[in-house]
């Protein structure tokens, strides 16, 4: 194929995130139990399961929002692999601002509603040391454009935005610092299907262009089919099946996954 100039990135055998035996209990009740997996650079992992299956608990433990009872979450930092569970709180916070990002289901949980759209994006930059007002504003405008928010809305508050726009603003706020790993909790939940499609397209492009790794929790199997390379199915806190996304959806092996897949209404 002489006409195409391929520029392949080197494949790395080093996982970006390596999770071993992660367990969280709420008293006698299991939140999630003995979860282990590796996530490689550029990979998108979907976690599906019904409400109460432990997928949100797992995401909170992975992202450092909640301390697990057991297990390790090893992240490949610029200084080498570090266990984020045992790392000092200050270090974990710094990582959450730089290498990691977290997109909440409800944009209100991830945005500052009283601050302008530009301020929401700029704030993240200032948190990692940006000080030049003009640079910050330029970068904010660039990111609003990437998530398809018109530059003339930069001074509006998120309250004046639709749900889909608020979610795109939350994504811009999270990605402006160039994270390597993004956690997403039902990122398309609560949105109209047409808005969902737009957001999916946006996320796919950003993942590809920035080489992002992502962990996406959702109950929507159509969303994971289009976004995730790999899939983990959770039930009652346990991972009952994991594998290539289309394999898990097209040829599910576990009874629960078969039930889940066959319960989706066809349109």
């Amino acid at each position: 194929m002489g006409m195409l100039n391929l520029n392949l990135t080197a494949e790395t055998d080093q996982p970006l995130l390596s999770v071993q035996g992660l367990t969280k209990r709420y008293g006698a009740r299991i939140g999630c139990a003995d979860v282990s997996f590796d996530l490689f650079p550029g990979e998108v992992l979907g976690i599906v399961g019904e409400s109460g299956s432990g997928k949100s608990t797992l995401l909170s433990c992975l992202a450092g929002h909640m301390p697990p009872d057991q297990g390790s979450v090893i992240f490949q930092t610029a200084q080498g692999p570090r266990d984020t569970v045992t790392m000092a709180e200050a270090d974990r916070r710094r990582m959450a601002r730089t290498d990691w990002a977290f997109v909440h289901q409800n944009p209100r949980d991830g945005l500052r509603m009283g601050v302008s759209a530009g301020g929401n994006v700029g704030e993240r930059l200032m948190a990692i040391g940006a000080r030049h007002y003009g640079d910050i504003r330029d970068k904010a405008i660039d990111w609003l454009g990437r998530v398809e928010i018109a530059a003339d809305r930069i001074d509006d508050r998120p309250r004046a935005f639709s749900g889909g726009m608020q979610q795109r603003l939350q994504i811009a706020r999270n990605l402006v610092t160039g994270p390597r790993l993004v956690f997403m909790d039902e990122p398309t939940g609560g949105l109209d299907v047409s808005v969902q499609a737009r957001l999916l397209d946006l996320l796919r492009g950003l993942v590809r262009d920035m080489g992002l790794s992502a962990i996406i929790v959702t109950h929507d199997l159509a969303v994971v089919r289009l976004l995730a390379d790999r899939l983990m199915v959770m039930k009652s806190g346990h991972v009952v099946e994991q594998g290539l996304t289309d394999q898990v959806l097209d040829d599910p092996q576990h009874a629960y996954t078969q039930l889940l897949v066959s319960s989706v209404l066809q349109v």
Partner: protein
Amino acid sequence: MIEIRDLAKSFTLHNQGAAVLPVMANANLHVRPGECVGLIGASGAGKSTLMRMVWGNYLAASGMIRVGTLDVAQAAPRQIIQLRRKTLGYVSQFLRVVPRVPTIEVVAEPLLNLGVPADQARDRAASLLTRLNIPERLWNLSPTTFSGGEQQRVNIARGFAYPYPALLLDEPTASLDAVNGAVVLDLIAEAKARGAAILGIFHDEAARAQVCDRVVDVRDFTPKVAA
């Protein structure tokens, strides 16, 4: 390039009394570079099942499916993702895309995923869409609203955008008119000429006769029912 040995497949339906359905046993075939092998056999005989096992979205019960240097039956998800990126292409019967993404982007996506610059990827997509007679005024629309035949041609353009060394084609000429069917057969002939190994399902006998070097009857792989 593609080699299948002693392949078996069964489905276990946990929610229907844990019924186990053996659907394939002792499947053996190979496809050399530059060769096109057609799968034949009645509907339900297992042609698509075999293709999906090669693609990796159906798990094998036992046996080997070698594509290039990888045994898909044993491979980790990551290895299959890599295989699909650079080695193995698949034109399925159905177009599955994110709604609202323009047709030209849908076709260019396999190249963009490989890091091909956007303008080159779009040029390649445009030339394939032109060859397959998709009018330029449709390129910036999502293919989800297209007719069945148009969607199929978009799917074919996407499958041929990158010159994969191995290709799976599931009914690529079904629901196409004679003119577009001929374009697809030309694309297949060109892929063979550059050395691609192709495994295909063609219901149209004339199409099959034109591009297939050999056929394999999947009924030979039907498990023998114990009396």
